[in-house]
C-alpha cells in the first residue's frame, strides 16, 4: 500500500467516551472488505503510590510534534501491515481512573495484520510520541510525573 493518508488529529481533550468505540464499529459496517477489527483501549489505573492512590492522569503534549509523530507511526503501520483502516485517539488534560486515554482501532481483511498492527502501534506510541503525564495522587494536589519504560 503506497497510498498517502491524510493526517488526522489524534489528540483530544478529556477522556475517550466509550460511545466512540461503538460508533467506530458502526461506521465500519459498510466497509465489507474488512474481516477483522483489533482494538486497544488504555485505561487509567488506580496505582498505589507512597503518598496515596492515583486518582487520574493529567496529560500534556508537545502537540505539533506529537501529531506529526502519530502521523509517521500511522504511515509506518500501513506500510508494514496489510490494513484497511486505522483510527488513533489519545487524551489530553485530566483522565480519571477507570476512564480511557488511548483508543487504537485497526481493521484488516484478515485477523493477523490487525492484531500485529495494534501491538506495533501501542509500543511506538508509548516510545515515540512526546506526551507527558502527571499522575494525580489523592485529593491533596500531590502528583508524580509518569514515565514509560
Amino acid at each position, binding site marked *: 500500500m503506497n497510498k498517502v493518508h491524510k493526517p488526522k488529529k489524534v489528540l483530544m481533550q478529556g477522556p475517550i467516551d466509550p460511545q466512540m468505540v461503538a460508533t467506530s464499529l458502526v461506521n465500519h459496517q459498510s466497509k465489507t472488505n474488512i474481516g477483522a477489527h483489533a482494538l486497544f483501549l*488504555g485505561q487509567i489505573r488506580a496505582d498505589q503510590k507512597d503518598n496515596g492512590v492515583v486518582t487520574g*492522569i493529567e*496529560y*500534556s*503534549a*508537545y502537540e*505539533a*510534534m*506529537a501529531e*506529526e509523530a502519530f502521523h509517521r507511526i500511522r504511515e509506518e503501520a500501513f506500510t508494514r501491515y496489510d490494513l484497511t483502516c486505522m483510527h488513533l485517539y*489519545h487524551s489530553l488534560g485530566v483522565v480519571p481512573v477507570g476512564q480511557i*486515554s*488511548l483508543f487504537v482501532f485497526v481493521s484488516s481483511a484478515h485477523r493477523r495484520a490487525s492484531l500485529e498492527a495494534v501491538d506495533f502501534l*501501542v509500543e511506538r*506510541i*508509548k*516510545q*515515540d*510520541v*512526546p*506526551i*507527558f*503525564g*502527571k499522575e494525580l495522587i489523592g485529593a491533596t494536589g500531590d502528583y508524580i*510525573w*509518569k*514515565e*514509560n519504560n
Partner: protein
Amino acid sequence: MNIQILYFGQIADRIGLSAENFDWTSGLLVSTLREQILAKYPILKDQIFKIAVNQKIMQEDMPIPFPAEIACLPPFAGG
C-alpha cells in the same frame, strides 16, 4: 539572535517556565545548548531529557540551525 526554547512536562514544572528565548550563535551544538540550560537551571541536573530541533530529536553533536524551535522533552508517558 534569539531562538525559542519550549519546556514540557516535569521540566516546565521544575523551572516554572514553558518557553523562553536563548542566544543563538553560528555553530551552536545541541550539547552546548544542553550545558547552557543545565548551567542556568541546576535543578535539572538529574533530569533526563531529549532536545528536539524543529520537532526532530537531535543528536548531541549536531549544530542548531537558525531559525529553530527547540524543545526540551522529559521522558514520554503516552498510552
